């Protein structure tokens, strides 16, 4: 645990070295929000409705804002970093460290997100709120969001680690990375709320982990009517943990299998 915390501390120092990279979000976020304000105002006004699929105009506009916030909480480079270790031959050095690669990368991901929350989420939330007031937000919904998004971070990390392991076969795993990114954003509800999907596709999403990365955290954030009960909250938490456990086992097995065949080279 001491080594793990030390790893977080070091990674935190590295990530804090370039705060400008994070602060640029303060310029980026308003563009996303302004685009969505115009887009959805146009759709709602033209359709002459106050709700579409249970989402009010402000909830719909904020849905995409909240998706950006979820990215801030869960994003990491683990898959790309693992591929780089293979391509550069650095993997050998990593394997000699007194901390497992899983833990080391987890520490790095945690540090990356701490900086992200400080420099992107908090100022971003203030800016968003000033541009378009989140009239649906309550303290309870925000706290539930934090709990669910914390688990989403772990889930995303384990998924990325599994993609990172594929680099043992392909060396360059950019293709797999993009595939996971595409599947995650579409079936996770980052592109459009899953309520808009046809019934059969919603059922498919129910059996996959991706909706717990975006759709569920965002729904807690925007305080959607369907998840206002405590039962709904605990159900999401339970399924989240179950997915993390299942994927962790898969990651461990894949790691052991791949490590037997690894050839450390590079340059």
């Amino acid at each position, binding site marked *: 645990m001491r080594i793990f915390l030390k790893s977080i501390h070091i990674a935190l120092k590295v990530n804090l070295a370039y705060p400008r*990279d994070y602060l640029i979000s303060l310029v*980026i976020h308003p*563009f996303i929000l302004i685009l969505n304000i115009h887009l959805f105002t*146009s759709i709602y006004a033209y359709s002459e409705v106050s709700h579409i699929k249970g989402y009010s105009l402000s909830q719909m506009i904020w849905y995409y804002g909240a998706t950006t916030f979820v990215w801030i909480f869960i994003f990491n480079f683990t898959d790309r970093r693992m591929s780089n270790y293979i391509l550069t031959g650095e993997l050998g050095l990593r394997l000699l460290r007194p901390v497992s690669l899983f833990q080391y990368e987890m520490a790095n991901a945690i540090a990356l997100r701490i900086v992200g929350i400080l420099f992107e989420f908090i100022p971003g939330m203030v800016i968003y709120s000033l541009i378009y007031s989140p009239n649906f937000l309550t303290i309870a919904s925000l706290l539930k969001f934090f709990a669910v998004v914390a688990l989403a971070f772990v889930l995303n990390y384990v998924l990325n680690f599994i993609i990172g392991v594929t680099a043992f076969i*392909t*060396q360059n795993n950019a293709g797999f990375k*993009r*595939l996971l990114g595409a599947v995650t954003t579409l079936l996770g509800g980052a*592109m459009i709320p899953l309520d808009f999907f046809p019934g059969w596709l919603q059922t498919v999403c129910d059996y996959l982990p991706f909706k717990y990365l975006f759709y569920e955290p965002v729904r807690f954030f925007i305080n959607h009517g369907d998840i206002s009960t405590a039962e709904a909250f605990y159900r999401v938490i339970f399924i989240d943990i179950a997915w993390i456990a299942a994927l962790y086992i898969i990651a461990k097995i894949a790691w052991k299998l791949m490590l037997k065949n690894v050839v450390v080279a590079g340059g």
Partner: protein
Amino acid sequence: MQTVAGLLRLYVYHMKMGISSAMIYRADFITGVFVSIFVSGIGPFVQFLYFTHSRGYPEWTLNQILLFQGLLLLWFGLRDLLFGQVRNTVMDMVWKGDFDRLLLKPYPTVGLLLCSGFQLHGIGSCIAGVLVTVLAFHRLDVSINLWTVPLLIVALICGVVLFMAITIFYCSIVIMLIQISRISELFDRITDFANYPVNIYPLALRVVMIVFLPFAVWTYYPTQILLDRLDYGIWFALAGCVGVFYLSIKVWYLCLKMYTSAGG
């Protein structure tokens, strides 16, 4: 003229290198193309979902938006094919200090950077764009008149010129600020406004997108040309592209004057 011919030869050389490089990791490339086609399909799918659960955008039917999406994907693919690599190249060169070497070459530096832009991965979006456009053509029964093709070609050329201008602005910022990796994201978010029909925006924003930052020339006007409902705004947009390009060159040389070597 000799300079342009030399740069074109260089571009073709980079293109061949890009193809060879992509073929080294063939499995990754093929996966990437399929993923790209799949990812490209998400946009039209999302629009389809919006249109089936609402009335969509004013003045646009589902099939018209399908055409818009097809042309948008085609544009994305073309843009990535032609200049997709420039951002990574300039960022990488400036970080490592290799950019200085470009200053010694017998061609304009900005030309050399643009020549290194070929990225084969853009082919996936192109394929998806062609498929969606053909589907939309089939469903819309588009009629092509005498002026359609020349206008489309002019719009395409101006679109490429505008994208070159934006890429030059990007390069100018990178050589000045050195270490801001997310500047790329900022440019993407701004150009995202071109992903939707211009008429959904309020008047002020519409004027910006037609005259000052004429993103409308990438997809909106080509779609309007094909739907035969073109307005005079296209002439402002075409002129705007040339103006923005001129401005980008001026800014580039200004930044180049102030550039201090970096790297390591």
